[in-house]
C-alpha cells in the first residue's frame, strides 16, 4: 500500500469506500493513478463480522446523529434513524442484500415518460441507455451477478417457493431468484452462497460482492492506494480560481488532517455527500460547494419500500437462505391506469430475531403483536422496491441545532411523500397481500416503512446545470476537478435497487477521469 504525502498535490482523494468510491479507487489505481481513499469507519473482515444481529448492526451502521422531518412514516416510527447505511470499509456493500437489477431504458427518461407532474421535480437522465448498458455489462461481470453471463441463478429457498407459488397464482410471469451479486458457483476467488440468511450482517463466506474484499484489496495490490480508515472528511477546500485542492478530515484520534488533492471525488452516501458539500461553504461558494444551482441536497429520493408478511399454517423457516433472492418484475412498467406513474419490484425478504419486531412489524405490543412472533416459523416475507418521485423540498440540510462529535451541524433529512408514492405503496401492498391470500395465508401483516437504505439523487446529473449538480460523468457543473461518485448522482431513482447502477457509473466515471487526465484537462 502506498503512503501518500499530505502535501502531495498529484493525488486523487476519494471520500468513501463503498460501491462508488471503492470501485472508483480500484479503477483509478489500476491505471497508475495515486489515490488517497478516506473512510470514516473501521475495517472489518470476514472473521470479524459479528453473527449477533444487534452487535452486527452496531459494528457496521452509521450511527452518528441525524435529524429528520416531514410526513413520511420513518419520521414517526424511527425518529433517530432516518436512514440505514454503513460506516465501515466497503461502505454499504458490506450489509447490502446484493440485488443487482438494471434500470429500464424508459426509467432514464422519467420526465418524458411520466410527464410534468405537479409537486415533482422530474428530469431525464443526461445519459442514453445504450451508453449505460455498456457499463452495466462490465459491472455484472465484475460483481458476478446471477442469471447474467455464466453465473447460474441461485437455488429456490423455502421463502421463495411461497413467493413463487403466490405470484404464479396471480398470473405474474417474470418471477425468479433475481439478479444477485452473490456467487452461485465458485468464482473470482470467492466461494458460493451457502444460504446463511445473514447477508445484512456481512457475508462471512465472501460470496456476496463487497468492495471490502474485492475492489479494495485489488486497489491495494497496485501499490497506488493509500486507504485511511477512521478518517472523516469535514471540509473540501479550494484555491483562488475556485478549483478544489485539499480535503480536511479528522483522523482516528480526532486530530485534524489536510490532504492535498489534484482532484476530489465524493462518495459518502447521498446524505453525507450532500452534507460535506454544504459544510464546505466559503466566501466564493457561500451556499456550499457545487451549489450555484441550489440543488445540492434537494430531490432526495429513497425508493418506495415496505414489508408484507404472510402467516401460513405450515412451516417456512424464512430465515434459511439468501435474504433477498427472489423477485417479481411484472410491475416494473409505467402503467398510469394503476393510479400512479413508475414501476415497482416485489422482492423476497426475511428478517432475523430481534430485527423482525424492531424494524419489520408495525408499531405495537400486547397479545396481537406477540401472536405474529408466535408464528415466526410459519411466516413468509416480501418487500417493495419502487420508484419514488423527486421533490425539491425533500432534501438534506444542515441542522445547526444538533452537532456531531466534531462540533459540526448534522444532516437533517426531510421527506414529504408525493401522492404518487402513497398510491404505489398501496397498490404494491395490495398485490403482495393477494399473492399470499391466493395460496392460503391465514393472515397478512403490512409492515412499516423502514429507515431508508437507498439514498439517492441529492447531487443529481442534469443536462441543464440549473436542474442538478453534476454533468453526465458526475463532474460538478461548478467545479471542474470535483466529482460525485455515489448514488447522489442518479438523476431519478427508478425501481431498481441502485448498487449496480452506482458501480456502472463509477466505472464510466473512471474512464472519463483517466482520459481527461491524459488529455491534460484535469
Amino acid at each position: 500500500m502506498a503512503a501518500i504525502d499530505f502535501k502531495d498535490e498529484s493525488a486523487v482523494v476519494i471520500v468513501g469506500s463503498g460501491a462508488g468510491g471503492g470501485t472508483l479507487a480500484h479503477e483509478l489505481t489500476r491505471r497508475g493513478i495515486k489515490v488517497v481513499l478516506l473512510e470514516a469507519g473501521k475495517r472489518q473482515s470476514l472473521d470479524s463480522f459479528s453473527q449477533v444481529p444487534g452487535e452486527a448492526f452496531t459494528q457496521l451502521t452509521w450511527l452518528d446523529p441525524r435529524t429528520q422531518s416531514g410526513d413520511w412514516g420513518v419520521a414517526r416510527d424511527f425518529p433517530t434513524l432516518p436512514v440505514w447505511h454503513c460506516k465501515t470499509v466497503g461502505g454499504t456493500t458490506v450489509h447490502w442484500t446484493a440485488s443487482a437489477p438494471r434500470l429500464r431504458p424508459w426509467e432514464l427518461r422519467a420526465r418524458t415518460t411520466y410527464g410534468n407532474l405537479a409537486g415533482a421535480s422530474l428530469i431525464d437522465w443526461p445519459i442514453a441507455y445504450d451508453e449505460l448498458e455498456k457499463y452495466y455489462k462490465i459491472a455484472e461481470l465484475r460483481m458476478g451477478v446471477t442469471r447474467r453471463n455464466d453465473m447460474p441463478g441461485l437455488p429456490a429457498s423455502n421463502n421463495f417457493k411461497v413467493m413463487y407459488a403466490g405470484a404464479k397464482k396471480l398470473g405474474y410471469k417474470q418471477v425468479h431468484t433475481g439478479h444477485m451479486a452473490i456467487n452461485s458457483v465458485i468464482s473470482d476467488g470467492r466461494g458460493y452462497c451457502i444460504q446463511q440468511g445473514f447477508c445484512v450482517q456481512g457475508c462471512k463466506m465472501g460470496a456476496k460482492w463487497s468492495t471490502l474484499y474485492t475492489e479494495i484489496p485489488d486497489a491495494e495490490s497496485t501499490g497506488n492506494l493509500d486507504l485511511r480508515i477512521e478518517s472523516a472528511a469535514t471540509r473540501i477546500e479550494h484555491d483562488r480560481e475556485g478549483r478544489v485542492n485539499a480535503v480536511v478530515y479528522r483522523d482516528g484520534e480526532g486530530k485534524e488532517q489536510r490532504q492535498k488533492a489534484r482532484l476530489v471525488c465524493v462518495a459518502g452516501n447521498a446524505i453525507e455527500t450532500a452534507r460535506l458539500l454544504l459544510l464546505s461553504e466559503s466566501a466564493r461558494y457561500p451556499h456550499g460547494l457545487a451549489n450555484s444551482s441550489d440543488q445540492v441536497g434537494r430531490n432526495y429520493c429513497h425508493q418506495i419500500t415496505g414489508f408484507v408478511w404472510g402467516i401460513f399454517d405450515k412451516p417456512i423457516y424464512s430465515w434459511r437462505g439468501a435474504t433477498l433472492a427472489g423477485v417479481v418484475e411484472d410491475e416494473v412498467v409505467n402503467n398510469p391506469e394503476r393510479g400512479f406513474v413508475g414501476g415497482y419490484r416485489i422482492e423476497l425478504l426475511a428478517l432475523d430475531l430481534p430485527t423482525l419486531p424492531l424494524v419489520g412489524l408495525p408499531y405495537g405490543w400486547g397479545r396481537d403483536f406477540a401472536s405474529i412472533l408466535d408464528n415466526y416459523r410459519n411466516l413468509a416475507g416480501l418487500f417493495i422496491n419502487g420508484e419514488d418521485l423527486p421533490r425539491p423540498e425533500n432534501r438534506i440540510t444542515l441542522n445547526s441545532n444538533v452537532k456531531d462529535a466534531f462540533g459540526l451541524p448534522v444532516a437533517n433529512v426531510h421527506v414529504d411523500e408525493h401522492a404518487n408514492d402513497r398510491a404505489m405503496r398501496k397498490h404494491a401492498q395490495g398485490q403482495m397481500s393477494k399473492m399470499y391470500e391466493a395460496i392460503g395465508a391465514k393472515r397478512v401483516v403490512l409492515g412499516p416503512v423502514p429507515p431508508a437504505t437507498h439514498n439517492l439523487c441529492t447531487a443529481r446529473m442534469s443536462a441543464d446545470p440549473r436542474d442538478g449538480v453534476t454533468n453526465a460523468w458526475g463532474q460538478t457543473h461548478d467545479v471542474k476537478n470535483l466529482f460525485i461518485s455515489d448514488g447522489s448522482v442518479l438523476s431519478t431513482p427508478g425501481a431498481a435497487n441502485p448498487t449496480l447502477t452506482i458501480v456502472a457509473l463509477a466505472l464510466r466515471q473512471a474512464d472519463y477521469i483517466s482520459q481527461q487526465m491524459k488529455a491534460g484537462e484535469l
Partner: protein
Amino acid sequence: MRNRIDKKTRGEATMSRFPDGQPDRRQFLKTTGLLTGWVAAGSSLALIAPAPARAWAIDLAALTSAEGATLMAAARTIAPHDKLEDAAYALVVRAIDAEAAKDERIRKVVRAGAAGLGNDFAKTDESARVAALKKIEASEFFQTVRLKTLQVLYATPMAYAYFGYEGEAFSRGGYLSRGFNDLRWLPEVPLEDSGPVPS
C-alpha cells in the same frame, strides 16, 4: 485463480472485543435488588441450560427487587408469550437495570415509571396491566421498556429456542444442507426460474 479471501483480509479486525456499554460491576458493589426463578423441566430454557443449573438469579445494580418485579411484569405484558420462561424476561430487566446504572437520568425515569405503576402491578391480572400501560404509552418510561423488551427478549437463546429460530448458520455450513429448501407443501420451482443447488 486468485484467492480473494487471503489471510490479510481475514485478519484485519479492528472491532473491540468488549463493546461499549458494559457496566463495570465494581462501581456497583451495593447491589440493591435480586430477581430469582426456577427453570421448569421440559421448557425451552431447560433444553439449553447446563444440566444441573435449574435455578437462575440476576442481581440488580440500580433497581430494587420490587422495581425489578414490576418491570418484568411490564415486559411480559408488552410481549406476552405464555410458555416463554421468566428467565428470558429477567434478561430484559437486567438490560434496563444496566442502563439505569450507567445513566442517572434513565434511572430516574425508570424508577418513577415503576413507582407510577404501583407495588401491586405484577400481581394484577393481564387486562389491568394492559390498561395501566395504555395510559402511559406515550411516556419515555413505557417507550424505553418496550424498546428494551423487543431488543433483548427476542435476542435471547430462550426466545430463539421458543420460536424455533436457528440464528447464525455460518459456523454450521449455512442452511444449504440444513433445510433451506425443504418446504414440500407447495410445488417446486422450475430450474429456469431458480438455479442448481451447489454440491
